[in-house]
């Protein structure tokens, strides 16, 4: 072998040794690197590893249903899917956003806004980016599990309300909890929670709302679930049973369709609200998913003010209905003799000003009974003058005006019962005696809500026992305020109200119900003073508000109904028939003419208006019902749909628009 490359030089031992030490040094350096990761920063990386491995998906607790007094479901839930965005990895999310927006057919702006809004939340908490997932969305998510691992589907229980705004103001609606509410709740609410925002949903939110659970599962690097860790089950919310009688509610809603006003029916013996409706209304189902800004703005700025619950928030002059308070005050204060009577020539002059009676011809010689039956203004002008504003205010206040009734629906207004002190306090002005004359017939600076008037009449007929109106059915008696009224006063006043409906010449004679002692008082209250009216010229929205507050039977009444039809002009023609229908339905049901279970159980009044009846029919066919443990909503298929009260057709709209 030729070894010509053989080199006999000595080996560079020093350099070899240097290399050895270098290797040991470098290895030590690397070990130091491991030490830093594995010992010093171990906790941080353990957390990151855990976050990689574990995915937490909330399990949404269903809200409790709302049932009527007989257990019929008015508000319940249906299962639905929301699209969740997992944000553990913000950079990744940002990178995938265009793809996500495209796949879910939402705008990039929309998603970015929602991510921005959730900036304060911890990153491991997923956010809902599309509340109602379509089948297409679900397919998109499933097919992109590997390349878009940040999307997840969340089973939610969507609130289902009756269609078309039926009882909307009572039920209220739910929505995502606001930051203010989170603060107030003291930790009970978390961001993203769905809570009651209005109506009973808000009032009884604590009761209706369940506690969400959490499912923790192990996912692999491509986002596929490979194991379950633990699961905290959701605790469903508890249902509430309302005092509402679905059948009466139906009649009330039906009667108000196309009008602007409210109906409140109360059992004066207990304060239980049997029906409470307000129109125009809105569809709470629009809120159940996620109401868009535009939609919300439209509702808020609608001149018809559909969000206003007129039953408890419309503060309007009660008009002649106030004469019941005047009559009670006159008798109870004994400031005037019970047989006090005046001659009504059609107008009268007080303090240098002429006050007209609604009937220019006059009522002739009028006593209290006739004054109520005919609603004689001149009689009550005189009574008012004799009593003075402070005495009127004392009785008005004690009979329920000027303060909240305490009904368990949020947002109730107080109305206004003026007094000398009030005017001094608010306007720093003296009360003019002339103002008392207007107030005596429920005009001027006096305002009441429909629920207050029902409460007032109910209390007076009960001899001064005022039961707090409420919508939650309970074994416990509602708080009661006693302002004793003598039997003779009650008798005189109720007799007068009986005459209003049942005597010849009574203002509500057209609403007489054969066999039923319907009593009541009409009211037609000016929206604006006569002088003001002259200034703006007569316009549709300045037409008088029509009132009727009725009850039955005459003694020991079981039901009080207050009806307001804004711009209805005449209490007798616009408001009284509605009250009559409600009372009639109450008696028909009571007398077994229509057994409750055969009454229509559709959540929507049949046929009115056509658009929402069609929706209801579709809903009845397709919507699955049944939440375990909650009575199911009887749908159209299981019971024959039947008109509630065959003998009382809806008020023809013609009477509304002369």
């Amino acid at each position, binding site marked *: *072998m*030729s*070894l010509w*490359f*053989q*080199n*006999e*030089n000595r*080996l*560079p*031992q020093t*350099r*070899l*040794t240097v*290399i*050895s030490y270098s*290797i*040991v040094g*470098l*290895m030590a350096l*690397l*070990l130091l*690197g*491991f*030490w830093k*990761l*594995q*010992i010093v*920063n*171990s906790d*941080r*990386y*353990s957390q*990151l*590893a*855990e976050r*990689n*491995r574990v995915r937490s998906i909330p399990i949404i607790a269903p809200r409790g249903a709302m049932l009527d007094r007989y257990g019929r479901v008015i508000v319940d839930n249906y299962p639905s899917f929301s699209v969740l965005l997992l944000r553990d*990895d913000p*950079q*990744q999310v940002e*990178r995938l956003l265009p793809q996500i927006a495209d796949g879910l057919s939402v705008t990039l702006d929309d998603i970015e806004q929602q991510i921005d809004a959730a900036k304060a939340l911890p990153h491991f908490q997923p956010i809902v980016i599309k509340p109602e997932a379509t089948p297409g969305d679900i397919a998109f998510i499933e097919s992109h599990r590997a390349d878009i691992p940040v999307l997840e589907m969340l089973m939610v229980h969507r609130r289902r309300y009756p269609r078309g705004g039926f009882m909307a103001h009572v039920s209220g609606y739910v929505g995502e909890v606001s930051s203010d509410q989170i603060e107030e709740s003291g930790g009970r609410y978390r961001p993203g929670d769905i809570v009651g925002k209005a109506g009973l949903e808000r009032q009884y939110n604590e009761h209706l709302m369940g506690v969400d659970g959490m499912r923790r599962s*192990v*996912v*692999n*690097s*491509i986002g596929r679930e*490979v194991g379950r860790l633990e699961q905290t089950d959701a605790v469903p919310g508890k249902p509430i049973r309302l005092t509402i009688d679905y059948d009466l509610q139906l009649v009330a809603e039906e009667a108000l369709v196309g009008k602007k006003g409210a109906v409140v029916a109360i059992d004066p013996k207990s304060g239980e609200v049997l029906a409470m409706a307000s129109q125009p209304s809105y569809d709470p189902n629009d809120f159940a998913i996620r109401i868009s800004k535009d939609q919300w703005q439209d509702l808020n700025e609608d001149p018809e003010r559909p969000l206003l619950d007129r039953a408890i928030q419309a503060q309007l002059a009660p008009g002649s209905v106030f004469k019941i308070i005047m009559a009670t005050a006159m008798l109870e204060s004994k400031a005037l003799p019970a047989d006090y009577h005046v001659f009504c020539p059609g107008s009268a002059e007080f303090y240098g000003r002429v006050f007209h009676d609604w009937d220019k011809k006059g009522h002739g010689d009028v006593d209290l009974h006739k004054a109520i039956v005919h609603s004689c203004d001149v009689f009550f002008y005189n009574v008012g003058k004799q009593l003075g504003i402070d005495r009127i205010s004392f009785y008005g206040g004690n009979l329920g005006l000027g303060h909240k009734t305490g009904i368990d629906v949020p947002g109730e207004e107080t109305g206004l019962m003026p007094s000398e002190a009030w005017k001094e306090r608010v306007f720093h002005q003296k009360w003019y005696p002339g103002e008392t004359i207007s107030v005596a017939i429920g005009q001027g600076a006096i305002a009441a809500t429909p629920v207050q008037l029902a409460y007032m009449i109910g209390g007076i007929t009960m001899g001064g026992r005022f039961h707090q109106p409420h919508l939650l059915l309970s074994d416990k008696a509602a708080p009661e305020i006693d302002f004793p009224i003598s039997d003779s006063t009650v008798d005189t006043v109720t007799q007068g109200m009986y005459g209003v409906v049942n005597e010849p010449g009574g203002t509500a004679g057209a609403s007489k119900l054969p066999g039923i002692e319907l009593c009541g008082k009409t009211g037609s209250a000016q929206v604006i003073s006569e002088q003001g009216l002259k200034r703006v010229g007569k316009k549709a929205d300045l037409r008088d508000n029509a009132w009727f507050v009725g009850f039955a039977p005459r003694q020991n009444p079981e039901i009080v109904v207050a009806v307001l039809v804004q711009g209805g002009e005449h209490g007798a023609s616009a408001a009284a028939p509605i009250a009559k229908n409600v009372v009639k339905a109450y008696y028909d049901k009571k007398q077994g003419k229509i057994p409750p279970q055969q009454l229509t159980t559709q959540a929507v009044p049949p046929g009115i208006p056509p658009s929402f009846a069609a929706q209801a029919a579709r809903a009845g066919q397709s919507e699955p019902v049944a939440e375990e443990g909650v009575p199911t909503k009887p749908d159209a298929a299981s019971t024959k749909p039947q008109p509630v009260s065959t003998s009382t057709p809806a008020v023809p709209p013609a009477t509304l628009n002369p």
Partner: protein
Amino acid sequence: MNEGTGIRDYDWWLLTIIFAICGIGLLEIWSATHAGHLAGMHWKQMWWIALGLGLMMLLSRLDYHSVLDKAPILYLIGILALLAVLVMGHTRYGAKRWLPVMGEFLQVSEIAKLIIIVSLARFFAEVRTERLAIADLCKAAVLIAVPISLILLQPDLGTAMVLVPVVAVGAYLAGIQWKHAAAMVLAAALMVPIGWHHLKPYQKERVSTFLRPEEDPKGSGYQILQSKIAVGSGGFWGKGLGHGSQNQLGFVPVRYSDFILAALAEELGFAGVFVTLVLYTALLLRLIQNAQHAKDRAGMFLVMGVAAILGFHVLVNVAMVIGFMPVTGIPLPLMSYGGSAMLFVFLALGLVMNVRLRRFVN
């Protein structure tokens, strides 16, 4: 030729260290793959180890002088093979690196590494001056520039880089002058911007994400980040073999190969890493000891060439796993799964054994 080379003359210490490292590697390959569709990979690896041991024994019987004697021819063959890969190689993962040989795909650059070791050992053995002359240094540079260029064309930056320490260590041992070394380093530094210009986009990305790994965690920074999470979450004692979530759920990239040390660090903790790195250190020191006891400079250069390549592999791979270096695709010798790499290591160790066996022989 075999006179005086008995079974006792093999480096049993070296073999013990090798077996220990291979054992740990097998264990971790099993752990990383047993649950998935890759199950059974450790058996394949065992066959590669067995084959490698056989080839090592075979090569150690051959006198290294005769191997060095054939160096020019080997060098030519190597260059031709690298050209062949470029012309008709099999493309995988976006690079032409594989030539089909007997039903398996052979990574030609692994053979090329071996040939470069032999060629450089031969070259430096011929340098008889105490100090390395600039002319010789340039010759060595050219000698290695050709295969490096060809490997870069595949493109395989990692393997090309691996060849640099062979010439660097060789030059150092051959007595490079400090000013020359400084000039070389400067030249290399100046080459970086030019080289950067010629990097493939994915290579640029790797380097830039190495510098700022948090910017794009699901992109290529993802690998480094997940590797660090795996290592860090392992703690001192680890999560136990088969219980590392980063490893088992697939968060650690190529956990049975390039990132096997990350999987090991997660499941066996700092303790496991310590043992492993001590074993590698022992391996390298043992190689250097063999070089120190080589019969001649040719043997020393041969062994140190092997030591340079293995050392570079180990240091770069380990540094990558803990985020000290960008992702380069350099496997961990003796542990990472892969047939070509395993055969290269055992053949290289065969050369070392060869030198050792002949230290007392004339």
